[in-house]
């Protein structure tokens, strides 16, 4: 224990703590810009500077360890002036077009700092970007005119996604730049489009590629029949931009979300949860087939496009393990466009425009994959992230909080609880096990709550379970992997070849889709990302336990109807044409 004086108050703190930690524990707010807990404690931005008596220079609170009898001032005039000058310097190199910026909704940390420290425009005009170009990509982009060189994206890409796409390039110390391989778009630089960097960027430099414009255009076009679907994880966070707390029960916001989509002008509201049930049927059947016929095991799930991109780029030798089933929203698009529209609605599939609301930036990339079409009909035409949906609702002056509940009546918005939990890490596996067990054993599982597959706490982001099938005489080893760290660790285990798994669920983002790159931003110092994921997941599990009539995918009446009328059976020839895809190695260059 060490005693120190913070802003005139005597306090006790543990040895080895930084000034910032001590201050936050004692309710003293020190502003930060580049700081990310345990990931980016580098003292680059000098916004967190404080005055320590006896030291002539100001020190950064984030990387200065406390000493005995230290006297610290966090709000002396000298400190405040320094912060203001530093922010003004940064502002000189930032292009202010806040009204069209994706972070213009008040979530820009840089803007809020300028506001807190009353930096006036005469201190930085004319504000011009450090570099005047945009690094393009199909999932995310990087607008170099706004970068403040905080290096957060670099540390998140290295530690969370583990793709190591970004680099802080300081060959020219006067004009550094953070970017992927110079001259290449994200698509060719090894990016998996998980979007975790877009959530930590303090400005609008890194953001999801905007699809709002093309969606609005489609809605305005009278010839287009615009259909919308939203992912399981969206309903766990859709209320957050409107003031609902993290982890709000699904029931409170789901009906409002459907109603908001109707009001936005979509012609038909459907739900990806329907296709999540369909995915379980296809993927489950594929798994059973591989077990019975000696196919390639373990089977990897393929619902997370960030993960699919990871394996295609970094571990192509494992591609045969990947389930050929498309991700749920692509299945939904294929079914709606190729069957629902022509056979029930009598609309030419060419006039149908399919919009997906996703918690994910990689889905934006996924819809552009050349495999995702049949006979010239693209499966999905646009993907909006949960954040973009929030922006769109606000832009249209829809009072989300006071909306009445609406429930779409078509078959493609009906779902089981097994589909809802897809959004949480472990959910796909739990849903699959519920169905696979019953198909193989002929009787339902004793308890449908497979709690060993839930949660995000474990350090290496891997969960394991063994499922005994007494009648089949098989012990099925399953594993659940989420986040880049977990993926890396799992490949190490697989390379060793000592453990025998049968079925592995992979998710590109830590915590699964609930913590996806397109979800509303919760600042790191407000809540840890795993806590956010756990709370949002609990909303989904709560809905699974309480809200739905059925909790097993094969009991979904819509799915049964679909197989009876259109696809014959799971894994049939026609199902393969529309609901399955293929993968190939993707090349990239990192420098």
């Amino acid at each position: 224990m060490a005693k120190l004086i913070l802003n005139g108050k005597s306090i006790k703190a543990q040895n080895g703590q930084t000034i910032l930690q001590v201050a936050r524990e004692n309710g003293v707010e020190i502003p930060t810009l580049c700081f990310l807990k345990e990931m980016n404690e580098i003292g680059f931005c000098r916004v967190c500077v404080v005055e320590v008596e006896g030291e002539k220079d100001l020190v950064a609170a984030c990387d200065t360890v406390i000493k005995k009898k230290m006297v610290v001032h966090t709000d002396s005039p000298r400190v405040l002036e320094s912060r203001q000058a530093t922010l003004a310097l940064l502002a000189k190199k930032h292009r202010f077009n806040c009204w069209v910026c994706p972070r213009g909704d008040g979530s820009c940390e840089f803007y809020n700092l300028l506001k807190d420290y009353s930096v006036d425009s005469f201190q930085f005009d004319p504000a011009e970007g450090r570099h005047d170009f945009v690094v393009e990509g199909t999932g995310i982009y990087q607008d170099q005119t706004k970068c403040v060189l905080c290096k957060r994206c670099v540390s998140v890409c290295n530690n969370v996604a583990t793709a190591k796409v970004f680099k802080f390039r300081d060959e020219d110390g006067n004009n550094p730049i953070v970017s992927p391989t110079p001259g290449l778009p994200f698509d060719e630089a090894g990016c998996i489009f998980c979007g975790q960097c877009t959530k930590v960027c303090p400005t609008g430099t890194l953001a999801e590629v905007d699809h709002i414009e093309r969606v609005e255009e489609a809605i305005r076009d009278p010839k287009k029949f615009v259909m919308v679907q939203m992912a399981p994880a969206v309903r766990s966070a859709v209320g957050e931009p409107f003031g609902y707390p993290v982890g709000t029960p699904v029931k409170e916001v789901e009906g409002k979300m459907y109603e908001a989509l109707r009001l936005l002008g979509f012609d038909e509201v459907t739900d990806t949860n329907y296709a999540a049930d369909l995915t379980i049927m296809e993927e489950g059947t594929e798994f059973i087939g591989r077990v019975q016929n000696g196919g390639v095991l373990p089977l990897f799930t393929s619902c997370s496009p960030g993960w699919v991109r990871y394996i295609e780029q970094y571990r192509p030798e494992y591609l045969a393990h990947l389930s050929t089933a498309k991700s749920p929203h692509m299945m939904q698009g294929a079914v709606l466009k190729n069957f629902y529209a022509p056979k029930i609605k009598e609309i030419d599939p060419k006039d149908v425009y399919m919009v997906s609301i996703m918690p994910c930036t990689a889905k934006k990339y996924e819809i552009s994959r050349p495999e995702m079409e049949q006979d010239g009909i693209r499966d999905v035409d646009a993907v909006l992230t949960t954040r973009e949906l929030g922006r769109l609702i606000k832009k249209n002056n829809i009072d989300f909080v006071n909306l009445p509940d609406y429930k779409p009546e078509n078959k493609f918005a009906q779902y089981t609880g097994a589909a809802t939990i897809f959004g949480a890490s472990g959910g796909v596996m739990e849903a699959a096990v519920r169905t696979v067990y019953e198909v193989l054993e002929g009787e339902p599982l004793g308890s449908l709550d497979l709690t060993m597959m839930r949660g995000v706490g474990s350090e290496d982001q891997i969960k394991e379970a063994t499922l005994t099938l007494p009648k089949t005489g098989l012990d099925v080893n399953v594993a659940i992997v989420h986040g880049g760290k977990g993926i890396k660790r799992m490949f190490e285990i697989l390379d060793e070849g000592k453990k025998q798994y049968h079925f592995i669920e992979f998710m590109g983002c830590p915590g699964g889709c609930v913590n996806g790159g397109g979800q509303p931003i919760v600042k790191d110092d407000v809540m840890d990302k795993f806590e956010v994921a756990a709370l949002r997941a609990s909303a989904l599990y709560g809905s699974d336990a309480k809200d739905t009539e059925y909790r097993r995918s094969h009991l979904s009446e819509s799915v049964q109807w679909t197989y009876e009328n259109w696809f014959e059976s799971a894994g049939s020839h026609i199902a393969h044409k529309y609901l399955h895809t293929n993968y190939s190695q993707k090349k990239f260059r990192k420098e």
Partner: protein
Amino acid sequence: MSKEIVLRIQELYENWIKDDMTSLGSADIFANLLEYVKETQKDICGKCIPCRDGVPQIEKLLTKFEDGSVDKGQLLTLESYVQNLRSSKCSVGIDFGKTMEVVLRNNFNDFYKKVR
């Protein structure tokens, strides 16, 4: 030429610690300081803001002082950038700031003359 100036300015700083009357020669003071800035810029690593973005701004302002196209506000801005270098991450920025503080204090007349 430039190395000499760096040495001279460093010498000035050391002398100042002993005797606070030492100052730079008034003739060519801004040209000399601009040389000094240029020398410093080669060492900048580009990591922290006060140094990376501050030094180029100081250079811009010094150029204006050399031209004589400055006002009082710009002198205050220059002072604030110089003082802000005290919050740099490493000694490149801190040392440059310290030296500039000395110059600003001991040669204040040369700066203020341009403003009047």
